[in-house]
């Protein structure tokens, strides 16, 4: 009798545990983008407008949910944008839309989608991360020509953040090569943003040396000799520079630099614009396979198109991304000074070629660190 109870207890307990474990497993699979998935305030906005007569007048469509998988520094941008879009969409079609956001390193986010995270749209830091999705057939081949400006509704560039008063007198790229200057930038092997930094320096060196590749490599190599810490991501580098007080200059996205100043006060840091830099084009795309499966193509497409409207562009500019619409550009021209900008296509070709030549194993970045070089 007692034996039976004991056996039953053990079996029951184990079954319970097994069930718990498998449940955990499923949960994890669904959330593989990490803890960052969240429903933003857009839900509230949608709920508030639900009571207005306008909403009841339109033919009742089922509410829809979108997942936007993005990268780290766009969190604030999309929080604002999602609210605006949900209001616009409901007014246009009477349909309520809730947009969930997921943020993390761009490459990591892309892998999450690759591994099964059901993103309706991706808004990532570089085309390479979307190309990876295209290669597996999740996204159609022509994604980059689907929307204007290479499917990059807003752009940014690479600038320098220095300590107040610019004690080392840093004005342009060559100043970063001086012996007494410590440069902070993340590792291009692990950070998408860092690849833009590296390419900005490389492109500048090409222009200064009549496109001499060897000279450009020497330039970049010397720059990386001055880097004492290679963080794994852009936010890590910002922390190293801002919180730890290490380094004389941080190479950063313009929007990150503005954000650091906004958060920490203009009395501590200032932005230095180099004479020439790269036009960073963070692209957007609808994930074709998933929207077709979920039946969300129409709203997902509208979501990305709305980024190009006056309101979408304004929200981008308010979050320190460079707008592409002329009228909004004009409004914010004081915030974004003219810098001579080159694009990836101008100097390097496609992302695939660039990645292979510079950042893949055995590429130029690896050679920079080979002993004796």
């Amino acid at each position: 009798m007692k034996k039976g109870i004991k056996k039953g207890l053990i079996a029951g307990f184990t079954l319970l545990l097994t069930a718990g474990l498998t449940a955990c497993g499923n949960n994890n699979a669904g959330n593989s983008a990490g803890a960052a998935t969240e429903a933003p305030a857009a839900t509230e906005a949608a709920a508030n407008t639900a009571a207005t007569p306008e909403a009841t007048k339109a033919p009742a469509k089922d509410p829809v949910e979108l997942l936007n998988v993005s990268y780290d520094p766009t969190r604030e941008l999309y929080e604002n944008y999602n609210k605006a879009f949900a209001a616009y969409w409901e007014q246009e079609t009477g349909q309520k839309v809730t947009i969930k956001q997921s943020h993390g390193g761009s490459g990591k986010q892309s892998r999450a989608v690759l591994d099964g995270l059901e993103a309706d749209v991706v808004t990532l830091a570089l085309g390479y991360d979307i190309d990876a999705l295209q290669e597996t057939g999740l996204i159609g081949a022509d994604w980059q020509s689907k929307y204007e400006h290479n499917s990059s509704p807003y752009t940014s560039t690479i600038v320098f953040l220095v300590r107040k008063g610019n004690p080392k007198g840093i004005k342009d790229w060559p100043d970063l090569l001086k012996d007494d200057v410590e440069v902070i930038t993340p590792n291009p092997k692990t950070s998408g943003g860092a690849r833009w930094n590296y390419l900005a320096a490389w492109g500048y060196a090409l222009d200064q040396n009549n496109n001499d590749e060897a000279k450009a490599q020497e330039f970049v190599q010397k720059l990386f000799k001055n880097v004492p810490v290679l963080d794994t991501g852009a936010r890590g580098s910002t922390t190293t520079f801002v919180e730890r007080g290490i380094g004389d200059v941080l190479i950063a996205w313009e929007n990150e630099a503005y954000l650091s100043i906004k958060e920490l006060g203009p009395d501590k840091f200032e932005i230095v614009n180099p004479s020439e830099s790269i036009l960073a084009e963070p692209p957007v795309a609808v994930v074709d396979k998933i929207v077709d499966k979920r039946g969300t193509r129409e709203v997902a497409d509208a979501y990305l198109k709305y980024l190009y409207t006056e309101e979408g562009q304004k929200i981008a500019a308010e979050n320190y991304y460079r707008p592409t619409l002329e009228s909004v550009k004009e409004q914010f021209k004081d915030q974004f000074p003219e810098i001579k900008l080159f694009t990836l296509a101008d100097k390097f070709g496609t992302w695939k070629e660039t990645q292979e030549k510079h950042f893949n194993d055995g590429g130029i970045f690896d050679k920079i660190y080979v002993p004796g070089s």
Partner: protein
Amino acid sequence: MNVTTNAAAAAVSRRRLLPGFGITMGFSVLYLSLVVLLPLSALLFNSTGLSWAKFWDVATDARVLASYRVSLSTAAAAALIDAVLGLLLAWVLVRYEFPGKRLFDALIDLPFALPTAVAGVSLTALYSQNGWIGSLLEPLGLRVAFTPLGITLALMFIGIPFVVRTVQPVLEDLDRDMEEASATLGAGRWRTFVRIVMPELFPPLLTGFALAFARGIGEYGSVVFISGNMPMRTEIAPLLIMSKLEQFDYAGATAVALLLLLISFLMLLVINSLQHWARKSSR
């Protein structure tokens, strides 16, 4: 499978006082499979897209080799230091009474509970050039953060509870009569320690060392912050896995992971047999 376990169960239950071998063994195997064996075989399975040539290329790449060197040497150094310090801590905790002992005791487990990233961030803040401790060491020419020394420090922090918690119970059970007997028979303190205490403590110390070492090889969270991640110098092997994934190089990442798995497993195997031998020879 079923038949053999039943037969084994029958054979065992004849000798055992408590029943339930069959069912408990069954569930043990199930758990081990779900939690350890299946994930590991998935790793192997993932690497099937990998040719031997590619595997060899990845495994012998200069940067990969350098990262193994960094990971293994810092983990070994940290585990060695932890073995000495851990013995000392366990000794103090077991043999002496002092105010705040319980607090002290609880503190030892903190590295188990703390998210490793927290450890990494706080150690970096303390030991970077302008941190509280780092700024004092800097004038002495000692740089901790962003050097192998920093990695070792982080791994020491992560590994210390392993040593203390394996040595402590053995030390508690140690028969003090033996030490007293040894002393009354005329052995000096050193001799008593070496001949009486040490043989008992050596096996758990080895276990603690092995656990701390194995943990150190795989540690990621606390190290990426303090190491500075400089290729060829302070880049650890787990970071290279991340770096390969960032290039969507799943096969390459698996290759590094597989080698890491192999090294850890071999280390544990060697140390386990060492321990077996030590236990045998001390009897």
